[in-house]
């Protein structure tokens, strides 16, 4: 299936400065691995050293969080749009007296 992957601003520099990339894949997992094979510098920002999708990477398929679908095994149709949405999180170190 030919799908479009939308790249968020902070990762465009690792994807040839493009804001979206056309890719051929059958599932979300295949699309993301195809993307990181093509642009290897993206890998460390999307996947852990063990090859799992980082917990703070949100992936949307046509505006729906893939956690509500079949996660990375969600099948794709032609012209689907996958959006990588960075989770924005942080905070000071956790003290032992918190709560």
């Amino acid at each position, binding site marked *: 299936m030919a799908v479009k992957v939308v790249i968020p601003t902070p990762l465009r*520099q690792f994807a040839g400065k493009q804001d979206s990339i056309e890719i051929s894949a059958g599932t979300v997992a295949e699309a993301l691995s195809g993307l990181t094979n093509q642009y290897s510098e993206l890998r460390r920002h999307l996947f852990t050293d063990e090859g799992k999708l980082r917990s703070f990477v949100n992936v949307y398929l046509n505006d729906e*969080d893939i956690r509500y679908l079949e996660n990375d095994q969600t099948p794709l149709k032609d012209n689907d749009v996958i959006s990588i949405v960075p989770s924005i999180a942080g905070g000071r170190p956790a003290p032992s007296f918190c709560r």
Partner: protein
Amino acid sequence: MSKVVLRIPNGAVEVIRKHGKESYPNECCGILVGKAGDSGKEVLQAVPVANLRLNAEEADRLLPRESVDFESERNRFLIDPKEQIRIERETRESGLEVLGYYHSHPDHPARPSNYDRDHGWPWYSYVILSVIQGNPEEMTSWVLKDDRSGFDSEPWTGF
């Protein structure tokens, strides 16, 4: 001497400081909107958003805590991705960009933590406001290194 690369209007600085004070002892967070150019980034607006950690169930669904005993809205922030997508869309439509994010460190220095580093993204400016005993104090800005090994300090100036 370092070059100033992030410019924040005094009104936006005030929005961030006020948000940090009002949210104390919890962490506050928000989105920095503006323009990026060759000479640096210029913020036009600081947009306060809710800290999703106040809604623990929803926040844990999106980004589970490593320790429910030691992590809460007092030392963690998370921006609701739906809110983020909405603001990003509006920003793009008005010809601007999301340049980065701000958050507060209640009773802690304005220095990025390991947790900040582990959850950071390159390119974005991460503005951190230290709020000590409810009073906004030092405010700093940081950019994650491309290899994710740490943050570089990003000098900023008000205008």
